[in-house]
C-alpha cells in the first residue's frame, strides 16, 4: 500500500489528541495521589510511587511489549509494512515505559528496602527487557534494507514477549524482595478502594499515553514513508 500524506496528517492529529488526553489523565492521577489518596500505614509517603510505577510497568509488560510482539509475528506472516511500522512505534513506547519503571523503582526501594537496587529476579529481568528494547532500536538503525530491518526486528520483538511471563512470575518463582502483585492476580485486589481508584486512573492515563504515543510515532513514520514514496515516484 502506498503511504498517503493526507492520511499521515490525520493520524498524527489523532495521536496528538490522545497524547494530550493522556497527559491530562496523568495530571488527574497526580492530583488524586497527593490530595485524595491515603498514606500507606507501613511504608509512608514513598508507597505513593506505586501510582506512577505500577501503571508504567503494566503498560510495558501487558500492553506495549505484547503489541510489539504480535505485530512482529503478524509481519512475519503477512509482510505488511504497516505492521512493522506499528511494531517499531510500540517498541519505542515500551522503552519509555520501561525507563520510567527502572527510574521510579529504585526511588521506592531506597526508603523502603534501604537500597537503590538489588539483583532480585523481577528487577534483573526488567533490566534485561530494557536492554533488549535498546537492542531492538540499535538493530533497526543498523539495518538499511527495510525488509531485513522489519524481519529481524520482528524476531527480537517476539523475544521481548518471551521475557514477560518470567518477569510477572518472578516474584512467585524466586524468593526475592519485590512485592507480589496487589491487583493483577487471581484473587481480589489487596488494597483499599481509594488506593485502587487512584491506581485505575493511573492505568487509564498509561493506556491513553500508550495509544497517543504509538499513534503519533506511527503517523510520523507514515508521513516520512509517504515523502520517500513521492520522491521515488
Amino acid at each position, binding site marked *: 500500500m502506498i503511504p498517503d500524506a493526507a492520511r499521515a496528517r490525520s493520524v498524527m492529529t489523532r495521536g*496528538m489528541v490522545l497524547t494530550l488526553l493522556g*497527559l491530562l489523565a496523568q495530571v488527574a492521577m497526580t492530583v488524586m495521589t497527593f490530595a485524595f489518596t491515603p498514606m500507606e500505614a507501613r511504608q*509512608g509517603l514513598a*508507597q505513593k510511587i506505586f501510582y506512577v510505577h505500577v501503571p508504567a510497568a503494566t503498560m510495558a509488560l501487558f500492553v506495549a511489549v505484547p503489541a510489539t510482539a504480535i505485530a512482529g509475528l503478524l509481519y512475519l506472516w503477512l509482510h505488511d509494512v504497516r505492521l512493522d511500522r506499528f511494531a517499531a512505534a510500540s517498541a519505542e513506547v515500551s522503552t519509555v515505559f520501561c525507563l520510567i519503571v527502572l527510574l521510579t523503582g529504585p526511588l521506592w526501594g531506597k526508603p523502603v528496602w534501604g537500597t537503590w537496587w538489588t539483583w532480585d529476579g523481577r528487577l534483573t529481568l526488567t533490566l534485561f527487557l530494557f536492554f533488549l528494547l535498546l537492542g531492538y532500536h540499535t538493530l533497526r538503525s543498523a539495518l538499511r534494507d527495510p525488509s531485513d530491518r522489519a524481519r529481524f526486528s520482528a524476531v527480537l520483538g517476539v523475544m521481548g514477549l518471551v521475557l514477560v511471563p518470567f518477569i510477572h512470575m518472578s516474584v512467585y518463582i524466586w524468593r*526475592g524482595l519485590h512485592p507480589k502483585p*496487589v491487583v493483577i492476580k487471581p484473587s481480589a485486589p*489487596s488494597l483499599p478502594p481509594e488506593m485502587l481508584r487512584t491506581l485505575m486512573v493511573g492505568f487509564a492515563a498509561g493506556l491513553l499515553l500508550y495509544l497517543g504515543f504509538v499513534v503519533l510515532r506511527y503517523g510520523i513514520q507514515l508521513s516520512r514513508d509517504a515523502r520517500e514514496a513521492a520522491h521515488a515516484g
Partner: protein
Amino acid sequence: MQADTLAAVPDSLTAATQAAVPFIPPSNAPYLYAAFGIATAVYLVYAILLITQARAEQK
C-alpha cells in the same frame, strides 16, 4: 547477597488511619516527589519530542 539481608514488604497495602498508631511512617516524601518529577518529565519530554516532529511533518 543483599536480598538475604533486606526485609521484604507485605503483599497487601493498608491505609494509615487518623488514630494514633505505634509506628510512624518515615519521612520519605523527597523520594515521592523525585519519582513523580522524573516520570512526569520523561512523559512530557517524549510527548513534546513527538508533537514537535509531527508538527514539522504536517507543514
